């Protein structure tokens, strides 16, 4: 077995397990946990385009999740436009806002950019909490929006069971992973990497760093907003504090950093490591000791940053390399 064959086999096995999983799991609760895991992995992959490849630290990405959710839901509730179309509309709105906000801020150094994104996200959240009607659009202020049940309907993006949601987010995740893989190997990826590490050096070689960063920002915001629509349709209810709050923004960044910033597998590994931990400690510990699950969360964050500052992907891929070598060499078929 050659190395390439091994990689492919494992990828196929992984895909088969992922697509077959709903057949094995009956409990909708567990399925929901896995759906949210994929949702976070998806969001983090989208975040990674800016946070990983472009080398800045966006700390307010939840705002684009919110823009996606609000756009598609307002269009659906008031104009009866299918959320699938609303999803794309939300993506376009988010990308436009991302460009407006990115244009002046992406030039700044790390700390300033992080603070700007926080301030923008919090500012927009406070605004939405204060606005009941934005022109003709009903936003409902702090109460949030409720999507009425329409029964099983693909056009209305509503399903009575969890499986369809599972497959939708799984396919979205696969697509975004393929997209980041493609970007990381393309010219854009190399330009972004160069601009993230040494903007001056990259610029002196004729790379327009600012434009590529802006492009990454637009793509990232677009993809993030798509997940916002998904979330709205999955939960059928959302409110500004829950969806646009800093908690979600920070969790996305944490998953990326623990998994490995700027790697393709990082978001998935980070989500696999953090989400179940988060869910189970919250379910089992928060009754007796409120806050313990977040103490554990913070400690893990500190420990990973202390011992694996590049994230968990680096040591895991080293282990994989070694295993792969052990499996492929004794086979004797050297190619």
């Amino acid at each position, binding site marked *: 077995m050659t190395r390439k064959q091994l990689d492919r086999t494992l990828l196929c096995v992984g895909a088969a397990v992922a697509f077959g999983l709903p057949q094995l799991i009956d409990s909708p609760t567990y399925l929901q946990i896995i759906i949210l895991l994929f949702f976070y992995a998806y969001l983090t992959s989208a975040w990674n385009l800016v946070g990983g490849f472009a080398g800045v630290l966006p700390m307010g990405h939840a705002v684009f999740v919110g823009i996606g959710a609000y756009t598609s839901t307002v269009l659906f509730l008031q104009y009866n436009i299918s959320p699938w179309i609303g999803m794309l509309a939300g993506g376009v709105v988010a990308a436009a806002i991302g460009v407006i906000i990115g244009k002046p801020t992406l030039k700044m150094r790390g700390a300033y950019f992080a603070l700007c994104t926080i301030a923008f996200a919090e500012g927009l959240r*406070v*605004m939405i909490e204060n606005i009941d009607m934005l022109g003709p659009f009903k936003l409902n202020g702090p109460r949030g929006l409720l999507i009425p049940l329409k029964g099983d309907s693909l056009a209305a993006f509503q399903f009575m069971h969890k499986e369809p949601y599972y497959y939708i987010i799984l396919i979205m995740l696969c697509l975004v992973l393929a997209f980041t893989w493609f970007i990381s190997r393309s010219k854009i990826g190399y330009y972004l990497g160069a601009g993230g590490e040494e903007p001056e050096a990259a610029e002196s070689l004729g790379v327009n760093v600012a434009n590529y960063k802006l492009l990454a920002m637009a793509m990232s915001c677009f993809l993030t907003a798509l997940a916002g629509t998904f979330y709205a349709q999955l939960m059928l209810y959302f409110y500004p504090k829950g969806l646009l709050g800093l908690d979600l923004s920070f969790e996305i960044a944490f998953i990326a950093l623990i998994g490995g910033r700027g790697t393709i597998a990082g978001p998935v590994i980070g989500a696999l490591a953090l989400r179940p931990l988060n869910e189970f400690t919250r379910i089992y510990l928060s009754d007796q000791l409120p806050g313990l699950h977040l103490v554990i969360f913070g400690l893990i964050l500190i420990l990973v940053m202390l011992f694996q500052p590049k994230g968990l992907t680096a040591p895991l891929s080293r282990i994989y390399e070694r295993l792969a070598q052990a499996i492929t060499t004794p086979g004797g078929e050297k190619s």
Partner: protein
Amino acid sequence: MSALYQSLVNGTMMGAMYGLTALGLTLIFGVMKVVNFAHGSLLMVGMFAAYWLLKITGMHPFLALLIVPPLLFVFGYYLQDLVIKPVFKSERGVREPLTVIIVTTGVWYVLDNLALMLFGAEYRTVRTAISGTSFSMGEVIVSWPKFAGFVVSMLTAVGLWLFMLKTRTGKALRATSMDREAANLMGIDQYKIYNVAFGLGTAIAGVAGCVIIPFYYVYPSVGVVFDIRAFIIVVLGGLGSIPGAILGGVVIGIIESTFAQFMTSTWTEAIIYGIFLLILFFKPSGFFGNKQDW
């Protein structure tokens, strides 16, 4: 007119205290080039320390100013030495280490939720000798605890300014903030300087805790309220600038209190964010910012 004077006075006093909460943040950033996300949590630690001290002993809140800040200095010094320094060392070559920001966020989560586990989520207040007292100045009524907080904030800022200007440690702090490598070559142990900077920043959060506690309540996530505001203030004043922090604080305080005359307080919050973004678009270095930092 008197309502306007009243809100200007209130805004200035509250703003100076916001400035005080931002002072430690700006000091730590100036020297280490790290945005300390745990700063609000350090303020919360300072507030709880002052709360328990005043609650148990019933002493005058001014006396607590002699006890809480030194304790917090030690706390911050060792927090930096044991938790943050190792990460800092692994990112030596980077001017603005992002991993360190994440570590401070971890510290924030741990501290806030440890407080939640230990003390519960309820809002606590303590009655001190100056709580609820006030004096009048013409038509304007001034609350004593806020006035005291204003004076202490100003004294702390001036004290820190003089410390940075006159003492050897202060000079070492400034040298490290200007150029890490050069300072190192001059025989300054940069990691010790970082410990001192972090300790001082934490001690100032302790001062803020002592002056806020006589008129405000404390609860585990109280830091977040001040934290976001402190971030805005430091960017407004210029990251790393001591007078900038106080001036930025006063500006935010006045905007908040005067706009509150015309609209609900949730809208004033939105307006502060709006003004903040406008400043970033047009003058990102703030009032006194160092150009190379942004």
